């Protein structure tokens, strides 16, 4: 009765790559901040959720245009990232990192409950974009949206690559992540670099939020929790200190999860992901591509 073979494998692979695009971008969000400060921003899942709500507001009250929603979510994410940096990091400069970490968890709750208070707790529908099938590959269905998501993720990755290696601020980010004290002595405005990195990471998370909300056709205040954890998992998996590692981790996690559902059972989905997280934290905390931790 159950047919195996290339079609199903391919369909799960496509599902996995699409989901992997979301994870990869979220993983970059995490590793941006981690690279600079060795700090996990646990509020990123909620910034993702706010991005999704930004998209929802635009679709519902203004215009059903995906590009507008994505741009607006980048702005909202940028502002939220900036705000989190100012409160959770800038103001807590010099105290042990644990305070900043706990503060980002506080932000996570604050944003989640604010969204519940502002928008209500009900799940809201997102309009579908480009959900028609673009082509079928050996029986596997690929929608335009999936193609767009993978393309947008790739584009975002290229933009970031350009930003890091071709611009002054990118140079600053790389210098600060190597050694912020020396970078400061060399005349780099460390505060500004950190602020930009936080904002950028927020903008990416919010951008992913809109994509995910359109892909799954739903927004609600608790939607950011699991993706936040999975994004963090993907970052650890690939190597949290490295952007290419984060990308690799994201795609691998997406593919492994979906194939895991196929070959084991969907009940084990989160078990697989978080099992990977634990194994890597224990055995290879620098991830697949991560560099050795500096002293």
């Amino acid at each position: 009765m159950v047919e195996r073979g290339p079609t199903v494998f391919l369909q799960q692979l496509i599902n996995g790559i699409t989901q992997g695009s979301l994870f990869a971008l979220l993983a970059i969000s995490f590793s941006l901040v981690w690279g600079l400060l060795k700090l996990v921003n646990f509020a990123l899942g909620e910034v993702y959720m706010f991005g999704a709500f930004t998209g929802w507001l635009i679709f519902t009250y203004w215009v059903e245009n995906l590009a507008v929603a994505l741009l607006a979510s980048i702005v909202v994410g940028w502002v939220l990232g900036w705000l989190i940096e100012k409160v959770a990091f800038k103001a807590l400069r010099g105290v042990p990192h644990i305070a900043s970490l706990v503060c980002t968890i506080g932000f996570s709750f604050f944003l989640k409950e604010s969204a519940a208070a502002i928008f209500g707790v009900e799940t809201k529908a997102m309009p579908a974009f480009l959900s028609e099938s673009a082509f079928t590959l050996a029986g596997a269905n690929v929608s335009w949206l999936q193609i767009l998501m993978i393309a947008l993720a790739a584009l975002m990755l290229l933009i970031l690559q350009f930003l890091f290696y071709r611009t002054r601020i990118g140079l600053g980010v790389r210098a600060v992540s190597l050694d912020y004290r020396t970078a400061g002595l060399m005349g780099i405005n460390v505060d500004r670099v950190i602020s930009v990195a936080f904002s950028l990471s927020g903008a990416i998370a919010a951008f992913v939020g809109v994509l995910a909300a359109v892909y799954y056709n739903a927004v609600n205040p608790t939607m950011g929790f699991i993706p936040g954890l999975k994004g963090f998992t993907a970052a650890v998996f690939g190597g949290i200190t490295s952007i290419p590692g984060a990308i690799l981790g994201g795609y691998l996690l997406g593919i492994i999860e979906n194939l895991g559902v196929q070959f084991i059972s969907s009940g084990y989905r989160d078990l697989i992901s978080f099992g990977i997280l634990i194994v890597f934290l224990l055995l290879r905390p620098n991830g697949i591509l991560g560099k050795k931790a500096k002293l």
Partner: protein
Amino acid sequence: MNAKRTAVIAICLTVIAAFPVLASGAQEGAGGSDTIHIALTAPITGDYAEYGVNFRRSVEMAMDEINKDGGVLGKQFTLSVGDSKGDPKESANLAQKWTSDATIVAEIGDFTSTCCLAAQPIYDRAGMVQLSPTASHTKFAPGSEWSFSIVGTQAYEQPFMADFAHDDLGFKNIAILYINNDWGVDTQKFFKESFEKLGGDVVAEESFFQGEKDFKAALTKLKQSHPDALYMAAMYNDGALISKQREALGWDIPVLGPSSLYSSQLIELGGSAVNGLYTNVSFFAKDPDPRIQAYVTGFEERYGATPNFHAALAYDAMYILADAIKKAGSTDRKAIRDALAQEKNFKGLTGEITFTENGDAIKSYKAVEVKKGDFELYN
């Protein structure tokens, strides 16, 4: 500088500490002798918040109506609401809080079977009625003489659905997608059992966890088994997502599921993807019965939303509890339990309620179908 830092840390910690408290929104009712103090446990925030909020709306509405009519035993009802967030630990904590408050005479809630089961031993030890509008797990009500459930268990609902799927709709092979919690597992088990007893075949089963948003992998896998229909043991918000993703995968197949899918939200969220979906109801908002219409219009005027099955169950819970207190003639916790256990043919909005020896309610079911974006009785 240091003072500033300390201040910021303090603010951060306060924000963290204050939120659960703010969110729970518990209001302490006055426990005077001229009032009857009831507690409500519901997931006001979290993944199940939309159900919890409806619980609170319905119970408050029913309570206001009863109070307006002079209350019970010459006393007015007051309500304390606790937010369990859909978390069994929170539900158990609230049970401790309610049972240690001597002014509280009975509790309504929680929403999920899992939460109800977690809190059950505490109500049992303290001797307080735990009246859940929705807990349908077969182990819940029989678990304690203090536990009652209004919804009717899956042991009654699933045979109805299996019969409907097999005999009326003519499905022989069914794939099941269910939520992996006490309720989902129970629903899946009873449906499968009844369906196989009728000669049908469950060809594939997959589960998912609360909070999951990606169902494509599970659906892709289920699709391979080429079933006649897909059975979704899910709440309506998940059910809508599953339907949308099923449509996006280009999988055209009849879908059916338990009464948890009956909500206007299913259609709002699912759009065209839920057209043709079959489910069952004990409460139907378009029922011409004047009492139901009075409730539906009252609810719509007050909250701007159409009440669903879960909301109506909470409304019935408040009324049947008030009736039991009236019959008990006292606000003694034990007297209320005994009177509640005696309730027979209580005319609720969700049908007549008679408690079995175990404290489960027996209900009658009607099959419905989504047609052109609206629920209609199946015939």
